[in-house]
């Protein structure tokens, strides 16, 4: 549990997913241990941070919780650029949200940091009787695409801390430099102007 020197890691984490899938609720549960039946809709994105101790290290997550509406898609690269991890969230009671999640996965595979740790979260797992997306289907998809998968419930707290712990465990360690951004491998120094062409 040493928390010094190279064992401290800052990791940028982004949550992506359809509107109302429960991104903000997952973060609120993880960061504050709370759940609100009606969580204010997120505009742009909201920022949170939370530190976890995992094995021999502490991981400080810098979390970007993004807006889910389709048209906000054009803002997303600003938030996932340089992210060390992503949680792609869908709502198990909505097939559309699962479809949307797959799109996010594809986009991150192409545009995101190649070493990004990606997790797929099937949220609202407490609503079993309204389920539209089977666990098997999502599990299979996750395996095929190299993600790890958990069904979560921000409401009952099931698997919420676990998914963040699992990400923390999987983050690449022993970064040669202690860069606060976690990863800057593909980032160019120039900012917006270059953003359009920095596909790698």
């Amino acid at each position, binding site marked *: 549990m040493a928390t010094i020197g190279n064992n401290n890691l800052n990791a940028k984490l982004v949550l992506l997913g359809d509107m109302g899938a429960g991104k903000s609720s997952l973060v609120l549960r993880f960061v504050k241990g709370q759940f*609100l039946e009606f969580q*204010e809709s997120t505009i*742009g994105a909201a*920022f949170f941070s939370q530190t976890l101790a995992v094995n021999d290290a502490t991981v400080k997550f810098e979390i970007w919780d993004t807006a889910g509406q389709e048209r906000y898609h054009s803002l997303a690269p600003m938030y996932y650029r340089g992210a060390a991890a992503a949680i792609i969230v869908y709502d198990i009671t909505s097939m559309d949200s699962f*479809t949307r999640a797959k799109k996010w996965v594809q986009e991150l595979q*192409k545009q995101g940091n190649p070493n990004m740790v990606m997790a797929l979260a099937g949220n609202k797992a407490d609503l079993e009787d309204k389920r539209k997306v089977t666990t098997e289907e999502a599990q299979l998809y996750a395996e095929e695409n190299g993600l790890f998968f958990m069904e979560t419930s921000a409401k009952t707290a099931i698997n919420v801390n676990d998914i963040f712990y699992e990400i923390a465990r999987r983050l690449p360690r022993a970064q040669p430099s202690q860069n*606060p951004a976690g990863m800057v491998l593909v980032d160019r120094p120039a900012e917006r102007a270059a953003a359009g062409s920095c*596909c790698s």
Partner: protein
Amino acid sequence: MFGTQARGEVSHEFQPPLMQYWRPNIYTRRANIIVKFQDLYGFTVEGNVDDVNVLNEVREKVRQQGRVWWALEANKGANWYLQPQISSLSEGIGVAALKLSALANSITLKKLIRKGIPPVLRPKVWFSVSGAAKKRSTVPESYYNDLIKAVEGKVTPATKQIDHDLPRTFPGHPWFDTQEGRAALRRVLVGYSFRDCHVGYCQGLNYVAALLLLVMKTEEDAFWMLAVLLENVLVNDCYTDNLSGCHVEQRVFKDLLAKKCPRIAAHLEAMEFDVSLVATEWFLCLFSKSLPSETTMRVWDVLFYDGAKVLFHVALAIFKMNEEELLMTSQIGDVINILQRSTHHLYDPDDLLTVAFDKIGSMTATTITKQRKKQEPAVMAELDQRLRRLNSLKMDDKPDSPRE
């Protein structure tokens, strides 16, 4: 209070404990505890005793400002501020004198508006100075009611999203937690989504429309304020499709920050902190999610009179006010915390507006229009390139690929 209402008439005779002083008792004064209370517009505020004192001072200032407006009404006649445009005056010998008096009025009005419109006069003044009145006068009187009747029961992607967001718009607010409140907000948003199908519904508008409803006396007026805001006051395409207008504004804002607050801009750039990370929400919600309600209203007072450049003034001021602290940061989280704490506690609107207009200095509408023109092609190219890349993703798709 929240009784049944005829459509179009917002029933919020919504009088939160208006102008009530909250007197901290000896215990709260001793222990600096956090208290919860309702502000002028019914929002729950959590603050310490200092915050409460500031809010009470602000209420007193609002009252004084009200007296100034009443005195002017007595002097210049009721509705003096609803002066017609100079151009609409007919010719004649009196024209020069009329022009002069109109000019004098408009100078007075500009100053007065900067100091705040009294809450009771807001509906009337906003409706006039924003151009909403003029906009409504170009269509038949029954426009809004007809529109609402025509779209009743229709289901579109926009209405679904609106329904989803209704209970998530200022949850905990005493009026928006009622059936009536949500129904009124729904009609305004759904109505607008049909008026402009390019905008449809964009998240963020729920907060804007909600505040408009709280201020304007009727649902219909809130609708027209929303219309004039999106169609005339703000830059085009802020809320459409890929939010291109919003992207343009963000780029312009970055340039302005570099010009007006060069030290902050340089420091944040060195940290690889993109100011859009925080400013996007400010611009899309017009500060309604960040600033205390009366402060937001004061920003909107100026916004409706002076136009969209006000948003730049205010955003720059927020950075400027926190300059020293921001320059000490080395982590992104700290920057965000400083800005959030600062905006949430800006209970005295004058603190903000003084910096926004006196310290930031003037920016003409023409300069900003030029800046926008300059940024547009870059934004379009970026969005276009992104779209093409996403489409190429689709082409590599496996057969069971997602639809749409």
